[in-house]
């Protein structure tokens, strides 16, 4: 039908425009962050050339290294070079390890951090949603439901920094069920343990928001219709009710991402896992500017990509979100 086709086209156009607007916004955020990092690092006291060569270096050697590192150029020229480097994903060699591209080191560290964050988001979302459905559906009594809600509130308020090391001590040192921090052979168990610690606050936030959103949906007639048609409770809640609350869940996951990346740095430090946070700390202490800039921008990109993914999941799951645009 032509009317319907026109409607679909307008909707697709709306979704496309939204995605383009989001992409432009995200790029602005990344460029703003990169510029901030650039300016902040140029204030850094301590001459990188001297740090590379050591205190005994002669003035001629220092000047030579400065020109190799482009530190003798005016600030605007360095900034233009930096932006060009970002656009072409080539920030030059690492100061600390000449011959290794800064971006290669950043990409090497990005993978474990992204892995940790992804597993944590997956675990947190699944556990939070499961708790919310358990607290909304007909399976539990009122006391069990309110205790689930109380546990979620407590978990959301507990600081990860305080309970992660204590949980590690209890499970790794006392019970010996998970690998110790710094164990190079930790592998998948180590990743899973670190991610599940990181997932706890996320699960609590997702659970609370999903619980409130599901309580609103519970009163609506389409669920009564589904029950009347003979759907089992698990189907009513997971297939009929859950997609309608995908919006709030995607929003809360996106809002928690910043905290999640910060938490990832803390957990990397706790478990001595290699990742972006450790790379930032190492590059800071050795004044390795290209690596430091690249690592901060990469964590910004990781964040932007995850936000875009959240929007896409919401659009895919909830037809109302597509229709509204």
């Amino acid at each position, binding site marked *: 039908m032509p009317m319907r086709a026109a409607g679909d086209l307008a909707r697709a156009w709306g979704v496309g425009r939204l995605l383009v607007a989001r992409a432009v916004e995200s790029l602005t955020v990344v460029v703003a*962050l990169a510029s901030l990092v650039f300016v*902040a*690092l140029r204030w*850094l006291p*301590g001459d990188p050339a001297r740090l590379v060569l050591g205190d005994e270096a002669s003035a001629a050697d220092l000047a030579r290294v400065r020109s190799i590192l482009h530190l003798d150029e005016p600030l605007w020229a360095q900034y233009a070079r930096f932006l060009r480097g970002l656009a072409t994903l080539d920030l030059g060699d690492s100061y600390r390890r000449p011959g290794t591209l800064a971006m290669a080191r950043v990409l090497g560290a990005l993978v474990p951090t992204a892995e940790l964050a992804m597993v944590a988001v997956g675990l947190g979302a699944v556990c939070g949603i499961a708790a919310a459905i358990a607290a909304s559906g007909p399976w539990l009594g009122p006391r069990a439901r309110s205790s689930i809600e109380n546990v979620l509130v407590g978990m959301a308020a507990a*600081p990860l920094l305080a309970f992660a090391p204590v949980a590690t001590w209890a499970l790794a040192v006392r019970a010996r069920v998970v690998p110790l921090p710094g164990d190079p052979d930790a592998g998948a168990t180590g990743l899973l343990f670190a991610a599940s610690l990181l997932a706890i606050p996320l699960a609590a936030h997702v659970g609370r928001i999903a619980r409130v959103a599901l309580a609103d949906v519970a009163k609506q007639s389409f669920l009564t219709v589904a029950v009347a048609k003979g759907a089992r409770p698990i189907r009513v809640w997971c297939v009929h009710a859950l997609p309608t609350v995908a919006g709030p869940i995607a929003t809360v996951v996106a809002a928690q991402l*910043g905290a999640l990346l910060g938490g990832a740095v803390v957990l990397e430090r706790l478990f001595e896992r290699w990742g972006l946070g450790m790379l930032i700390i190492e590059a800071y202490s050795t004044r390795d500017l290209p690596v430091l800039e690249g690592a*901060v921008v990469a964590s910004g990109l990781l964040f932007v990509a995850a936000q875009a993914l959240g929007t896409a999941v919401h659009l895919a799951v909830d037809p109302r979100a597509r229709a509204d645009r």
Partner: protein
Amino acid sequence: MKRRSVATLVPLAAILAASSMGAWLVREPLGRLDPTRAWSPPSWTRPFGCGEAGIDLTSVVLSAERRAIALAVAVALSGLLIGTPLGAAAAFARGRFERLVARACDLVQAFPTFILALAVLSAVPHPSRLHIGIVFALTAWVPFARLALAQTRVLREASFVHAAVALGCGRTALLVRHVVPNLLSIASVQLGSSGAAVVVSEAALAFVGFGPRDGVSLGGVLDQGVASMIRAPHVLAVGAFGVFATSAAMLVAGKWFEGTR
């Protein structure tokens, strides 16, 4: 109207009192090293035990708590003072400025502020508490602005606002004298959770090695505790308890403002 309950201030007051008492009881300079008592467990004379190189954890933790609370209060108040007028002004201006502030709130709130803090602090050779406070204040205004924005959208249609406009009240005077005072009670409820977040973030920065120069931080104690997890678990327990108790005390103290609504 709920009554203010003084009981909500008890945990914070207890920490501050213990902190001043502890400084008086320990009677030795903060951070004195004595390798003979390194990693010694808690005892009657040293209730929190000793850490690396024999540093007395009781005095370190109590001072760190006091400094963390001072930082948290300063940052949360700066957030209140910047965010509330900004959100109110944005909601009154409507249009583009309102959308801009709302979008900025979304972005900053979801942004990896911890990474931003790492990036900004890496520009300082030895970060002090002032630097850390400034970095946190960069983002602390957001929840206050968001609350003020939402509440002013309601208030701007209120009859007392229309009355003030009809009496010839200018826009600035309207904001400063009529709207912002009405927002303070709602915005101040956020003070507790903002303060608790600052306590945890400051400890987290110190934990990853970006702590204040004097080294007196709960994160520093946690860092020692993780390194000595097998040999001296009490250090870890003391550090974790310090972070938990201080942030929880801030959260609970924030409830005091709920009584004013």
